């Protein structure tokens, strides 16, 4: 074996960095549109749901002004929509239509490194975009708090998990239109029962139990903890998100290995 070969191990930073550098090169060509929509979307939501509803139906929830309740909750929606969906569609397109992964796997990169890099890139990007609704809510009157500094970390853990979910789905579906099932069966329900727009403690008890298993709900609670004060249980919430990311990473690697290696 060559000297160069003996240095190659599992999960090499050089391989992961190389794959991420490809994502960065591509991102430079489309970042303006993505950033524009990620900033505009929470503003529109806050105007429509927050200001609209708080002026007519709901003034506050659990003592929190409704604009701020929705604004902090929207961090979770921004995270899932900028992680699960790009992971699903992006992975599918790169694999099936662009043959990008064939090119990358012909280099000294293995599937585990490829998936890890894709998840990490999506996770980092989503953790940045996830903070935008919080910044917009601050502009709408939410007081900044030191606890908010941990929000990017919470977003990252959640986004990694949903990126893994998206990659695994992309490796599972046969056709791109089957993502409609994934969105309808998983993404939309998770988003609706996350507690982003209404508190889940008003829901039937069974739904509340299911909602506790929803990573987005845990993220919503952690973001509100950052804004309005943490509780001891938040450590468990973060541990749950970290476990979610870890499990989804392994599932994504397994599914993509089966898909990419004949």
């Amino acid at each position, binding site marked *: *074996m060559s000297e160069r070969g003996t240095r190659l191990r599992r999960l090499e930073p050089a391989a992961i960095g190389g794959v991420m550098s490809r994502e960065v090169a591509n991102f430079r060509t489309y970042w303006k549109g993505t950033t524009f929509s990620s900033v505009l979307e929470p503003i529109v939501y806050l105007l429509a749901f927050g200001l609209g509803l708080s002026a007519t139906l709901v003034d506050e929830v659990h003592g929190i002004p409704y604009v701020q309740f929705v604004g902090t909750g929207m961090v979770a929606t921004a995270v899932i929509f900028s992680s699960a969906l790009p992971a699903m569609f992006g992975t599918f397109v790169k694999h099936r239509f662009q043959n990008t992964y064939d090119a990358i796997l012909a280099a000294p990169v293995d599937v585990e490194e490829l998936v890890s890099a894709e998840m990490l890139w999506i996770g980092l990007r989503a953790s940045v975009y996830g903070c935008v609704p919080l910044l917009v809510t601050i502009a709408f009157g939410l007081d900044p708090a030191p606890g908010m500094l941990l929000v990017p970390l919470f977003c990252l853990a959640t986004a990694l998990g949903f990126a893994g979910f998206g990659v695994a789905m992309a490796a599972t579906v046969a056709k791109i239109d089957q993502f409609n099932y994934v969105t309808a069966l998983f993404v939309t329900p998770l988003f609706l029962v996350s507690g982003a727009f209404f508190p889940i403690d008003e829901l039937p008890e069974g739904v509340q139990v299911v909602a506790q298993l929803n990573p987005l709900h845990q993220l919503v609670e952690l973001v509100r903890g950052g804004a309005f004060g943490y509780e001891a249980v938040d450590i468990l919430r973060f541990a749950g998100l970290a476990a979610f990311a870890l499990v989804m990473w392994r599932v994504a690697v397994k599914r993509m290995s089966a898909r990419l290696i004949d």
Partner: protein
Amino acid sequence: MAAIELRGVVKRFGPITAVDGLDLDVPEGICLGLLGPNGAGKSTTMRLLTGQALPDAGELRALGHELPGDAKAARAEMGVVPQLDNLDVDVTVEDNLAVFARLYRVPDVGAAVDRALDLARLRERRRDAVDELSGGMRRRLLLARGLVHEPRLILLDEPTVGLDPQIRTQLWTLIDDLRSHGTTILMSTHYIEEAERLADEVAVMTHGKVISRGRPAELIAEHAGRETAEIYAPPERLAEARAIAETDGLRVRPAGPAIAIVGSERAGNGAVPEDAVRRAASLEDVFVLLTGEEAE
């Protein structure tokens, strides 16, 4: 040491055996053309060599590395030029190259990109998006991307498939340069002219195994003799001429609207019609005789 050693390699996809007990040695420094019809197992062999396909049986070594276990180390020293264009079309030419220089752990990415741009003759277009390049430029870039780390071994999978003759000639010149610099090349192709022009040796592959191998001239001499006679005539006359030639022990193959009597220099009196067009036997004759497929 052989750059590639395959022993009894088998790869199945469900009921289909794509590679069927393949034995293949590629010595260092040569260009071996893997010539075969579509579905012969050429692309699967390439994927086995990069670890993107796992063998069901057999032993594989590339550049001294056991495959698939040590495929990642082997890939670090080989370059792959795929059949399909998988460049990042929105990204600039130089960024496409830089990404792969990083993936291959090249220490000086800038120098590697400059070298690859010179090779592809794309220095002037380095800041253009791939989308803005012509088809020929894209193929040259694809080749340069596979060479950005100066590999010891290059796998070219149908490098000129679907290209017009002018672009094909440009690529042949580039590949010829690599060969003359001593880089080992394994090139799959189903174009006879490509194999004849570039390969030091040709391995004819069909149904997942190599059925004959040698220098083009040796293969022609062994399987087709010195001369081929082509007969252009109505179908009834072609059938009659075929029957006569076969009775004389000659091998006859279809050649588009004509038939070709291979090894016609051995024909007895009257076995080859006087109006037949006689020409030197070719690798195409060998290919069609061995694989039963029409050549491209």
